[in-house]
């Protein structure tokens, strides 16, 4: 009896998760793949097989291409603006004897815990033209002209990146801080004694030893870019505002799936997204893995 129970027990422990996961995740993932080869519009309609038709249509869909461009633009902003800023902040957090260190660590993290919807509501006022915070409290005192942050198609993506900078720098700085605290201080001290200056210690000791953290942070940032929805959707409108300047991939997927009810086409967008994220993650692994050789 006891032995039987012990043999059976693990299957009983794991079954609630795996049954649920199969029904509510694996089945949808597989069904989306099937659906991506069909044309189906609306719930009641009969799906008709179109082969690779949806995927070919995607390549010629100007709005889809625009959404890929915009999302990639934002992802590049995350990697080249937000992450370096977070690294700098992480180094600042790691400074010994910095007053209010614990406060800063927690405070810069707070933008992350608010809902994307709340963030969009707040930033509607931050970016407002002419009544916004940036226009009135930063640009005007500096004698600079007020900008239509969310109205000028050229400024929409920089605005969203600025929002991302506000929202995600703090948490990424905490990731970097965790990585920095894993580096034994003796290594940096030894390099300093050998005559390395602060920049050299950072460039040749600290940065290489942060590589695992950097890889993690970059992959999370890229995935996060492709997940972004609430903020651009509410700030620029369902279609991304003028010239679709704020149209992100997840917004376009939502639009096709739940406004136009093009289920087959939406499934194809989902798989296009999967492929893009997969490729970018592999490139990251390769690139940062390759640095390891030298």
């Amino acid at each position: 009896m006891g032995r039987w129970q012990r043999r059976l027990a693990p299957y009983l422990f794991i079954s609630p998760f795996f049954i649920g996961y199969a029904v509510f995740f694996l089945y949808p993932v597989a069904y989306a793949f099937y659906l991506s080869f069909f044309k189906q519009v609306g719930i009641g309609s009969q799906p008709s097989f179109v082969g690779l038709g949806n995927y070919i249509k995607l390549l010629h869909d100007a709005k889809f291409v625009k959404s890929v461009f915009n999302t990639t633009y934002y992802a590049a902003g995350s990697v080249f603006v937000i992450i370096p800023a977070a690294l700098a902040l992480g180094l600042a957090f790691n400074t010994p004897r910095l007053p209010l260190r614990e406060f800063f660590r927690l405070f810069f993290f707070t933008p992350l815990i608010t809902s994307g919807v709340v963030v969009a509501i707040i930033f509607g006022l931050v970016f407002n033209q002419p009544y916004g915070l940036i226009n009135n409290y930063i640009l005007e005192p500096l004698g600079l002209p007020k900008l239509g942050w969310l109205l000028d198609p050229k400024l929409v993506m920089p605005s969203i990146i600025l929002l991302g900078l506000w929202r995600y720098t703090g948490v990424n700085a905490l990731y970097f801080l965790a990585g920095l605290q894993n580096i034994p201080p003796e290594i940096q001290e030894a390099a300093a004694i050998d005559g390395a200056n602060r920049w050299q210690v950072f460039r040749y000791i600290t940065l290489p030893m942060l590589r695992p953290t950097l890889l993690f942070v970059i992959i999370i940032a890229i995935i996060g870019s492709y997940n972004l929805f609430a903020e651009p959707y509410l700030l620029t409108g369902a279609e991304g505002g003028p010239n679709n300047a704020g149209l992100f991939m997840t917004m376009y997927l939502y639009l096709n799936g739940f406004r136009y009810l093009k289920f087959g086409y939406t499934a194809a967008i989902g798989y296009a997204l999967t492929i893009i994220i997969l490729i970018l993650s592999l490139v990251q692994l390769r690139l940062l893995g390759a640095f390891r050789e030298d």
Partner: protein
Amino acid sequence: MGAMRPLTRSAQVSRGINARDLYRSLRRRARLGLLFLVLLVLAVLTGAPFVYMITGSFKLNAEIFSYPLHFLPREPTLSNYIRLLNGSEIPFVRQFFNSAVIAVNQTLLSLLIASLVGWGFAKYEFRGKRPLFVFLLATLMFPYQVTLVPLFLLMVRLGWLDTYWAVIIPGSLSAFGAFFMRQSMLAVPNELLDAARIDGSSEFGLYWRVGLPLSGPALSVLAVLTFLGAWNDYLWPLIVLRTAEKFTYPVGLATLVGLYKVEYGMILAGAFLATLPILAIFVLGRNQFVAGLTAGAIKG
């Protein structure tokens, strides 16, 4: 005491070193002070939008959209809160309650499911364990967006559209949660389990009376992360909840954005009220927050 000593040659040398040390420590202090100032300015920039949300919620709409701007309300008013809470525009109280019911239940259910599967993986050997584990890892490469349409069609077929179930059930199945609980439950000592078995405990009893109590810290980290995600989620509730009475607060507040531009003070009031529970959890569980968010990073 040192200053009272007669000035010998060696003391003079050491005073020279002291001067250099003094210069160095001054420089370090100046650098520290500068860094502190920069962080202070950045903290002000980070906090200002939040503060403006709060002050704006006490302003009439005409004041929010007037020139010149005033950071603090010139004629503070509670009318935004009154109109929000008496439900003249949206049933905000109801939507806030919906969010709470969904977030609490989703958190409890996902803790139960994740700890069960984590326990099974951490403390038992069974046929198919490795392949299942690797398979689960491989499924992480699919972004949730892929599942939206099929999952929606499934909800339609189950008749769950516009119910709490449609949000709670899919949301409580997290592969991350399973991995996270397995990882922490590995640390439960096997000797304890063998001793309890000899005492006649059932296998479920081991999980319930030994595994769960010893996983308190991990459970609280997972609870905080799950609650935060559920409380703040927008896209999935937007898809499956159809009537204002069933909306969660993000879906409800979003219906006001753009639709009634004139009601911005009220929207800010709602945004502020909806952020309060999260702020309370953050203050109480800040260590869990930080531990949870950095759990993945350290391992890389």
